[in-house]
């Protein structure tokens, strides 16, 4: 019987944003804590940054693999969380990233009720992005200058 290759995961085609020294995305302590609880409920998780109407601009958190990534996405980084074995990938569509790449993103969490299919909504909270501009030094390190 022919062995069917398991190496066809489309996520492998997602381009990696260069720049190992400086992170493009980080977690607030509250968000990290919440991710541990959400992983207990839903298994390993992933983020995809949304855009557009309503809850656009919210980072959407899904069971890892639920959202199919592809060549139109970029992988901004992996978020390491204390207490979780595997880090959580953070992704964004490449076209949106073009308008966001000069900013460093921190995934935070606030009280609220997001719509969309993000897993934290039933807990009465919502992931939110805090942004700051990269400094020139950071941009240089990231290869953006």
């Amino acid at each position, binding site marked *: 019987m022919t062995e069917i290759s398991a190496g066809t995961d489309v996520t492998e085609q997602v381009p990696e944003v260069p720049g190992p020294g400086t992170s493009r995305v980080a977690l607030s302590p509250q968000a990290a804590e919440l991710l541990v609880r959400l992983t207990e409920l839903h298994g390993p998780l992933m983020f995809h940054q949304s855009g557009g109407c309503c809850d656009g601009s*919210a980072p959407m958190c899904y069971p890892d693999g639920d959202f199919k990534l592809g060549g139109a996405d970029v992988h901004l980084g992996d978020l390491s969380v204390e207490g979780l074995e595997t880090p959580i990938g953070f992704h964004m569509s490449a076209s949106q990233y073009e308008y966001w790449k000069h900013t460093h993103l921190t995934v935070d969490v606030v009280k609220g009720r997001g*719509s969309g299919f993000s897993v934290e909504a039933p807990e009465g909270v919502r992931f939110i992005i805090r942004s700051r501009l990269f400094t020139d030094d950071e941009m240089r390190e990231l290869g953006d200058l």
Partner: protein
Amino acid sequence: MAKYAAPGETDSVVSFKPRYDHFIGGEYVAPAKGRYFENPTPVTGRTFTEVARGTAEDVEKALDAAEGAAAAWGRTSVAERAGVLNRMADRIEANLEKIAIAESWENGKACRETLAADIPLAIDHLRYFAGAIRAQEGSLSQIDEDTVAYHFHEPLGVVGQIIPWNFPILMAVWKLAPALAAGNAVVLKPAEQTPASIHVLLETIADLLPAGVVNVVNGFGVEAGKPLASSNRIKKIAFTGETTTGRLIMQYASENLIPVTLELGGKSPNIFFDDVFAQQDAFADKALEGFAMFALNQGEVCTCPSRALVQGGIYDDFVQQGVKRAEQVTMGHPLDTETMMGAQASNDQLEKILSYIDVGRQEGAKVLTGGERADLGGELSGGYYVQPTVFEGQNSMRIFQEEIFGPVLSVTRFSDYTDAMAIANDTLYGLGAGVWSRDTNTAYRAGRDIQAGRVWVNNYHQYPAHAAFGGYKQSGIGRENHKMMLDHYQQTKNMLVSYSPNAMGFF
């Protein structure tokens, strides 16, 4: 000045029930898991009712009811279905105040808008599709003397609809009216931020609809929306919201090979050419009103004119007067008929808007007015209010590129027509746009050159039925608010008929 009593007070025109179950098969059904979630009003931040927290089991039950009702509903005559839609419209009209106040309390928007726009537009929308389905014809094509192709419209069957929270009732009706007119049965999930007002609407009209034709399952996206969107029992899914969920819904739809319609927002440019200020007359005043239109519905509109592009010749004067106009937008209690701008729909929405105001400042945009959370005092202190805010900056800034979904306007300058079009189209989205000019040639050319599905010329934020609404680029797929939406809820049956007695001549 008049202020409506808040729901819960003795003289209120509307009273919410303490709890809402799912509406399935014409009756209220408790959620399978017995869980409910609290529903706060953005007006004060306090909970006013609780709502069923639906899960896959509830969605399956709703799909059972819809499948049970779809065949008979799909066979009714168009006159019968149009009659039902017209009676729904009449009933809503007779209860307009009640439904409008419920909507304001639910969403936080000023009742001035729900009384004059949201609910009247919903009523008209039902009447429009009642008329459109009566007037719809199939077609026939004569292929040759003996062969005729007939095209019949047939309903899809059971469809799923996921509704946003910015116009909870109007957006539900935008989706329900064409689906029902075309003869489909619906399973609808309201947004979890605004799950209750649709039930006030349903109480008003439920007896007019055959059981199972409209089913409403409340709950969270991950628990109720996902089982609906990914179900292999629906024949189409319609969604209004943001891009990541839009993609996810398309992914689910691809697994079942069903069509989708999506409305995913925009970052609409509102373009003011020099000649709008050629005279200080009624038209100049109208253009300034157009500049302030970003405050409509607290900016929570997919087509919010959130980028103002103003030509260099009038820039300083126009922007100064425009800011003054924006400062005249009065905030207050949403149930006060004098209030122009109410509360943002939820706490996380408020936080998101404030985070964008922060990004704008960091990027070096200049705050021309507003820029802060508004504390309106008293019981409203717990509500979610933001000052109308005007930034001046560059189109590359994130506040010019992302839909803030709040009362935040980003203003920039353009030099000439080419520059205006380049800035206008430098966006991922293409839902709405505004063009303001006294020169019809300029206005026409701009209207055609802007990559957006709706271009308002010398007006903005009008949403009459019979004017197609939908997006270019990443703003979505499909056109609502027009009879062409019927096509998105219908199959085309082609019968190719030969009237010749003779063999075709192949074998």
